[in-house]
């Protein structure tokens, strides 16, 4: 009877745990270049755009991305594209020196903007980002989402080729890149949640194990006495000699490290915008 109950509890536990793990696998196979939080693309369109963006990214060594969201994710219009670029951890190349361009579209607010980061700034200057904004506007006002994204990717490919873009690392003028992460996307939050679940399961099983050990401990009430404190008679401790002898004094000195205001990176070499990113003149509503 107990074993049957144990089996059923165990099965439910494993089933639920398996369900929670399942989305991790499906997400691992999903698109990484075109992210659609709204379902505006059909699966075929999504695959086609993703393949196209992936090809341009690999051919030109510059990440080309499209992200369509339901809302602004708490960002201002100015920070919207930049925020998504970093929240989705986008970019081609080294982790601390990524290069890429993003077309970020807020579906419900009908707002979009483009943003480039890293070496991509060589090609995608503010002027060219504005021209890209112009290009996609014509599609978006007609709700041609697919057309807008495809045109954006193709135009990026064309510009990267025509400007002779080559991926390279960049030394920024600021000592550290300004923090970008303001708010995570729902998908990121889900991924983080799912990543933490195994640790939650481990921690829970440790708590379960300790609890059972405590329960087992409550079943045992025996033990050898280690001392006889309670049998010392009243005033039974008598000191016959108590002497404290000073031996010596040692002294150690530690110098306090003061911040002298030095440090920072020297100039020289290729100089970029302090944040490493390039904005368009401004996003647009359509």
């Amino acid at each position: 009877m107990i074993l049957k109950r144990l089996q059923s509890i165990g099965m439910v536990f494993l089933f639920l745990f398996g369900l929670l793990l399942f989305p991790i696998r499906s997400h691992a196979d999903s698109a990484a270049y075109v992210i659609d939080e709204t379902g505006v693309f059909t699966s075929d369109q999504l695959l086609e755009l993703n393949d196209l963006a992936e090809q341009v990214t690999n051919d030109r060594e510059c990440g080309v991305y499209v992200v369509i969201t339901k809302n602004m994710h708490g960002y201002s219009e100015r920070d919207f594209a930049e925020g998504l670029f970093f929240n989705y951890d986008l970019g081609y190349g080294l982790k601390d020196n990524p290069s890429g361009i993003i077309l970020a579209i807020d579906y419900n607010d009908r707002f979009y903007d483009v943003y480039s980061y890293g070496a991509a700034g060589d090609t995608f200057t503010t002027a060219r980002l504005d021209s890209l904004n112009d290009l996609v506007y014509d599609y978006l006002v007609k709700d041609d989402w697919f057309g807008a994204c495809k045109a954006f990717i193709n135009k990026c490919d064309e510009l990267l080729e025509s400007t002779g873009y080559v991926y390279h690392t960049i030394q920024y003028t600021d000592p550290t890149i300004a923090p970008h992460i303001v708010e995570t996307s729902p998908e990121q939050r889900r991924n983080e949640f799912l990543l933490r679940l195994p640790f939650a399961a481990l921690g829970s099983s440790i708590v379960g194990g300790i609890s059972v050990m405590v329960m087992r401990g409550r079943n045992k009430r025996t033990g050898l006495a280690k001392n006889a404190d309670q049998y010392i008679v009243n005033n039974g401790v008598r000191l016959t000699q108590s002497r404290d002898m000073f031996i010596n004094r040692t002294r150690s000195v530690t110098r306090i490290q003061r911040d002298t205001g030095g440090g920072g990176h020297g100039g020289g070499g290729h100089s970029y915008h302090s944040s490493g990113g390039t904005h368009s003149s401004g996003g647009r509503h359509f």
Partner: protein
Amino acid sequence: MADQVSNYKCPNCGGPLRFDPATQKLKCEYCDSLFTQEEVDQFYRKDEEAAAAEGTDQKWETDTGEWSEEEAAHMRAYSCPSCGASLIADENTAVTVCPYCNNPTVVAGQFVTKKPQFVLPFKLDKDKAVEILNNFYKGKPLLPKAFTSQNHIQEIKGVYVPFWLYNGVMDCHMTFNAQNVRQFSHGDEIITETDHYQLVRNGTVTFSGVPADASSKMPDEYMDAIEPFDYSQLKDFDTMYLAGYMADSYDVDAEQDRERGEARMKASAVKSITATVTGFSAVSPISTQITKLDGAAAYAFLPVWLLSTQWNGETYLFAVNGQSGKIAGDLPSDKGLAIAWFLRITFAMFVVVSIVLYFIGGGFL
């Protein structure tokens, strides 16, 4: 000479002695006491003589008596062929089951036991002992239900367990290293000053009535666990206190039990003397010398309610202090219940932690 002298320890504090050329005497490095060679030799000679006289394995004085003919005439002796327990009871108390191993074939034995000096009469009656045992079973999620239902709690028996009660004085000589640390800043510097001390604490700690059960059948960890007993209720032994109860005869003499009692006294003596060291930020003992100055052991019967029960082929013993009601015993744990509880708690924790993580993470649905 120098090597020989360097092995001497100060008679006052136990610190090492060195020859001091200025005074031409032996000087203690710690307390600065000065001794002539003769004085030190005399001290050690006296010490050695005392040790030789007492022996390092000092005997405890014990006080046991013999039963009078009249007393013995009204007592009956029993023996358990299963565990070897040797029991006595008054002539009106029938001993049919061994309280230690629950063996129902107790036989008449030879009345050879010594008479105890003291007895601590039962204060709790059987009903109270049964109630305490019943309460002990409650709130134990891993206790198999069958164990409780098959347990014949009513068969609990009042037994006077033989004990040696040790009185003794422990002479402690302890030295410590101690430090006081002071930290302050001066300009661009943090200065840490550490004062080092050598401490000497000599003293005696007096103990009275440290108990050690004198029955080889009684597990020591059970009797230690039901301490303490209130010795203010201790009476000179009289057979009237045995009426309705049985008593176990001692088969571990005071000398055999001595180590247990002494070990406990020494631990407490060290603790008590160490507790006199105050006012330092760090203290560590360097040397500890403990000698028993004198000691005596009294033989006493102490009251214990005992229940021995069989379950799944194993014997489970429970002991209740017949005076305070403190209980000792190991209950069995059901593996199936343990696994079930583990899964329940783990699953519940997992659900709660997952919900918390979901909301802390900002949600995504």
